Structures are given as C-alpha cells and as structure tokens.
C-alpha cells in the first residue's frame, strides 16, 4: 500500500536533489547555453552579441554543411553495416560446444577498449598509399591500391571501415546477451519440426534479436553523427582531402577552435542535435514494423 504524498513530505525531493543538480548543471544548462550561443556572435574568449538568426542563415548558405551532412550520413550507413556482421559473428560464437569462445570474444572486443586515436594512428600506417601494408597486400593480387587517406571518397570509406571494425566488438557483446535470452526450447522444437540451422537463424535468432538490433542501430546512429576523433587522427587536419571528407562535428570543431566563431559553431551543434533527434525519433516510430518484443 502506497503512502499518500503528504506523508512523504519533502524527503523524496531531498533524495533526488543531488542527481537533479548534476543534470541541471552538466546537461540542461550547457544545452540551453548552446542554444542561446547559436543566436549570438561569440568570440574565442566569450563576449556574446545577439545576432538573431544570422548564424542559421549562414548555416543554410554554407555548402560545406551539406557536404558534411552527406559525409556523416555515408559514414554512419557504413558503420551500421557492422550490425548484421556482428549478428552473424555473435551467433557463430554462441553455438553450443564452441571451444575457446571466450578467447574469440576477447579478441573481437579488444578494438573497442583501445583508444580510438591510437588505433587510428596504427591504421594510418596500414592505409599509407606508398608504404602501407594494405596496398602491399593488394599489390600481391595484382590490384594497384589508391592513396586511401588522401583521395576523395576513399578517405571517407577508409575512416568508415575503421569505425565499422571498431564497432563490431561492442555490437557482439550486446548481441551475445540478446542470444543468451533466447530460450533453447525454441531451437529444440524447431529441429524436431525439421528446420535446419539456416532456417532456425532466420526464423528464431534474427526475430528474437530485433530488440538488441534496434538498440544497436539507435546507439550506432548517434555515435556515427559524432564522428570526429578517428577522422581527425586518421587524416590529419592539414590533409588536402579534409574539406571534402569532414563530418559535422569536425565542422563544429573548425568553427569553434580554428575559425574562432563560437556562435556559428553553436548553430552547427544545434543542427547536429536536431538531426540526431529526428533520426532517433524516426527509428522509434519505425520500430513497430520490425522489432519483436515478446
């Protein structure tokens, strides 16, 4: 039986207060401040002047913004491919009786726990057009590889492949947990009815994993739209291909810390927030059609 509000008094508020203050200071305030800044012209050391929607009209007229949106979408789309790959690997690793499953799982998870910048620097060497091991390997099978990190589109693909590779470990952990939640009776029943492994995978594993897949696609999309560190470390800020490969967050960084236009940078940040918010909303709306909750 629940007590009435008057009996609880102020105590619930006291308990909530620390968290509430934290959220207020570190989440809501910066969010509101950024929104406010996006309507101002703010220099590198502060000193804001209200300029109305000027930053947003600059944003609409900036061709770099459109290119950055395209690049970010392409990047995110490629990294999303990591989910089906991870579904496949996770279900293979989850097959009963597989020896050394923990070892494989650790190996797949390693890239996720390593520092993105450090990984990017290693891949920078792998991708090197003249001396890189990737092009040496391609050379063996008769393919003259491109300059991965300095050619338009190739550079973006190179960054995305790295992102995909790094995402697989985390995806697999989440999916493994999802797989463990599928009752084994379902598989037993299916094999009694004569379903092979392929059909079991299609009719049981994938549908029952859809909540995990949905979760991953939301998380991956949000992370994809925050692409910055791999891009920065893999290509380098003085790379001639950077203007054609930059992401939205790179644009934000550039405006805030190189161009010293904090107001415009805030407008870019609000744009990213809006795009991520819309995409996430869309994903939630769309989930009813394909996500199975039991």
């Amino acid at each position, binding site marked *: 039986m629940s007590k009435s509000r008057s009996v609880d008094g102020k105590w619930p508020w006291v308990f909530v207060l620390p968290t509430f203050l934290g959220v207020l200071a570190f989440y809501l305030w*910066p969010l509101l401040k950024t929104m406010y800044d996006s309507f101002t012209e703010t220099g590198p050391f502060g000193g804001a002047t209200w300029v109305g929607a000027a930053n947003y009209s600059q944003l609409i007229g900036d061709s770099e913004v459109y290119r950055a949106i395209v690049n970010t979408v392409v990047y995110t789309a490629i990294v999303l491919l990591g989910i089906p790959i991870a579904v496949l690997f996770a279900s293979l690793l989850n097959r009963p009786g597989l020896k050394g499953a923990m070892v494989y799982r650790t190996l797949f998870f390693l890239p996720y726990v390593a520092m993105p910048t450090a990984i990017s620097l290693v891949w920078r060497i792998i991708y090197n057009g003249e001396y890189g091991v990737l092009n040496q390997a391609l050379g063996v099978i008769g393919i003259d590889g491109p*300059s991965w990190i300095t050619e338009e589109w190739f550079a973006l693909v190179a960054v995305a492949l790295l992102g995909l590779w790094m995402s697989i470990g985390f995806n697999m952990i989440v999916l493994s947990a999802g797989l463990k939640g599928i009752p084994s009776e379902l598989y037993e029943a299916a094999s009694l009815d004569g379903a092979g492994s392929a059909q079991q995978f299609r009719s049981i594993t994938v549908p029952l994993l859809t909540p995990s897949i949905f979760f991953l696609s*939301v998380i991956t999309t*949000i992370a994809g739209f*925050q692409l910055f560190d791999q891009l920065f470390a893999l290509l380098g*800020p003085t790379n*001639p291909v950077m203007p054609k490969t930059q992401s939205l967050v790179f644009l934000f960084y550039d405006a805030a810390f190189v161009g010293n236009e904090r107001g415009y940078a805030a407008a870019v940040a609000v744009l990213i927030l809006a795009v991520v918010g819309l995409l996430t909303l869309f994903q939630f709306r769309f989930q009813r059609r394909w996500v199975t909750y039991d």
Partner: protein
Amino acid sequence: MRISSVVAGVVLAALALTGCGGNSGSAGDAGVPDDPAKVKGDLTYAIWDVNQQPAMQEIVKAFNQKYPDVKVSISLATFDQYFTKLKTQGSSDNLPDVFWMNGPNFQLFAANKQLGTLEGLTEAKQVDPANYPKALNELYTLDGKQYGVPKDFDTIALWYNKKLFADAKVEPPTAEWTWADYKAAAVKLKAALGPKGIWATGDSLGNQANLYPAMLSNGGYVIKDGKSGYGDPKSVEALQFWSDLVKGGFTPNAAQNAETRSQERFFDGKAAMMWNGNWVVSAALKSPHKNDLTVVPLPKAPNGGRKTVIHGIANVMSAKSKNPEAAAAFLAFLGGKDAALIQAKAGAANPAFTGTQTDFVNSAPQYNLKTYIEAAEQYAEPYPVSKDTGVWNKLEIDELVPALGGPKPMSEVAPQIATKMDEALGKEKK
C-alpha cells in the same frame, strides 16, 4: 528503454558538442617585483614542447634560487591542443599565469585583453627589448604595446644530404645558389635517384618554410597594411616556382605530404634536400643519416633577393594572474641571459637573447647552424600575422597548397586566395 533513452541519447549528443562561454575583463599591467624574498605565490607555466620540458624545469630551479618563495608548476599540453586549451581557460578567466605564445595566436590573445603588457617591466629595466631581434619584438607588439618576451627564434635555410648528392654526382648546394640552380639540381637528382624511390627535394610546402621565404625573396609579400599579398605578381611568381617543382615530380604534392611528411622523407634518406627551419635540428640528430646532413643559406630568387621569415616563441603573462608580482618576476627571469644560456646548453631551442646562441650552434657543429643566426641578422623579416591569423592560414592549407602542381596556374589560384583572405581580414576590423 523507450522515450527516456531517446532523451538521454539526444542530451548526451548535445553535451558532447557544447562549447564554452565566458567573459573578458580588462588588461592588467605587470607589477614590478621589489625585494625577491618578499615575492610569494604559486604560478602555473604552460608550454607545449615535451623536448624542452627538462630545460624549462632547470630554468625554474635557477629562478627559485633567487625567488625561493615562488612555486612554479609546469603544465604541458601537446601543440595540437595547446591553444584550444588556452582559449577555453581564457574564456573562464583561468589562464595560466605565464605561458608560451606564438605569432599566429598573439594578436588574438592581446586584442581580447588576455595578456599583461611589459610596460612595468621595461620601465623598471627588468626586461630590455634591445636584447632580442627587432623583428621578434615587433611580432609581439600590438598598438604600440609589447606583451611578449622573446624566448627563442627560428629562420629558414637549405638542408641537404651530402651522400645523396655524391651518389647522384651532382654538385652540392652553395650559398650562391639561385632558384634556377635549385631546380637544375632537382632535375639531375630526380634522374639519378628517382628510380630508387628517392625524391629530389623533400619540401613540405609549408607556409613558414617554403611559401613565405620564396614570396618575400622574390619581392612579394604575405600581408601589408591589412591587405593580402597573395595577388601580388611577385608573390605569384614565387608560388609558381613551387608549383612547377611539384608538377615536375621533384617534390611531393600536398596529398603525398599528408600521407608521409616530407621532412620525414628527408631524414629517412628518401629526399636529397629541403627548405626548413632550425626547429628540425633535434629530429636531424635522431636521423640514421645524421652525419650526411648539413645546412647552407636559402637559394636566391631570380632578382638576387634572399629573405627568410623569422619566428619565435615568446613568454607572456596572463592579464588576470592571481599573483601578478610573482608572474612578472618569473617572466623577467625567463627573458634574462641566464635562462637563455640554460636553453642553449640543453640544445632545446635557439635562444632569442642576443649573444647567447653560440652554445646552440655548437650543440650540432656538423650542421653549420650559424647559417640560421646569420639569416636572422642579415635577411630576416617578421613572420606575417594579423588579429585572426588562423583563419587565413586555413585558406593556405585548404586551398592554396593542394593547388600547387595542379592544372590551374598560380596566376589564377593565388588572386582568389587573396580575395578570400582580404574578406577575412576585413571581418577582423569590426
């Protein structure tokens, strides 16, 4: 995991992106420390070069013998993050008390009233600008007030690999070389060494080491009276010189530089010569080919002109230091002869204090580093800067350098850069 997680995700995304606001106050003046024993307080000294940290620590130790009650802690950030960090600290009035400054960022900090002037220190003869190269004092002066005490300086000269020249049977460079000689040698070097995967030149197409010295030598300019010099015909000729070298395959283009920095090619014995500054000395000493390398003055432009830019780091102090007396005392000490000699002996940097460079030159006698000192004395011009240098430096990186060696002639590309740069310079004046 319904709507609440969406909100959390979105808020997180926003958080990752939020910038910082803040406010600016008024510029402070450097106070003059009286009796050293009475000066007390804690100071933070921010620097960006890990190679120079030991020398800086030694300077602090020497400072503490004179001022025992001032505690200086050194704060190190890598160069890529250094100015981002400083700007953030500045916007919340938390700048380190004393810190390194460079030319491109100086006016931004000074004009936004983040730095203390040297007026108090110069009046009390604690700092005498006459001790440093004139071009460096000018670099750190804004509206008639000097803010920075020059710490070190760098100029540009021609590095070459003696062994590669001998292998290719090409006469090594001399102080009398012209651009034509440079190019003629590049043709021969490419013919002899190209098949072995060795470049004739390893020029990184950087503004400081390549573009500016060439433009100035040829009688052009980078910035004058708030206007861009990229459209000047003499500047264009100089840029065309680099463009032709790239086009001929004598030196790597911007993309090849982004993959492997040409300076690394040179130190790996994969390029025979390059224009570069004295800041590469420590890298040269680590090269497997270190004994094959040496330095001569830059080649002369067709009109006989020879110029280099001179740049140097300066020590500055925050306008809002909580211990202004201690900060001023430390700044004065950093600008003194003792601190300069400590730097020079460590081979860390070429000190700016006139007459203290001998130790730096002797730290690598095989490289003839006197060339750099003579360049500073005889044919150096101040490093070009404006109030918001970073904005047009980005134009150089994004649009000019990638066009070198490209299909469009510099007479078409460079004036476009000039227009955009003038636009950026116009915005600064607001």
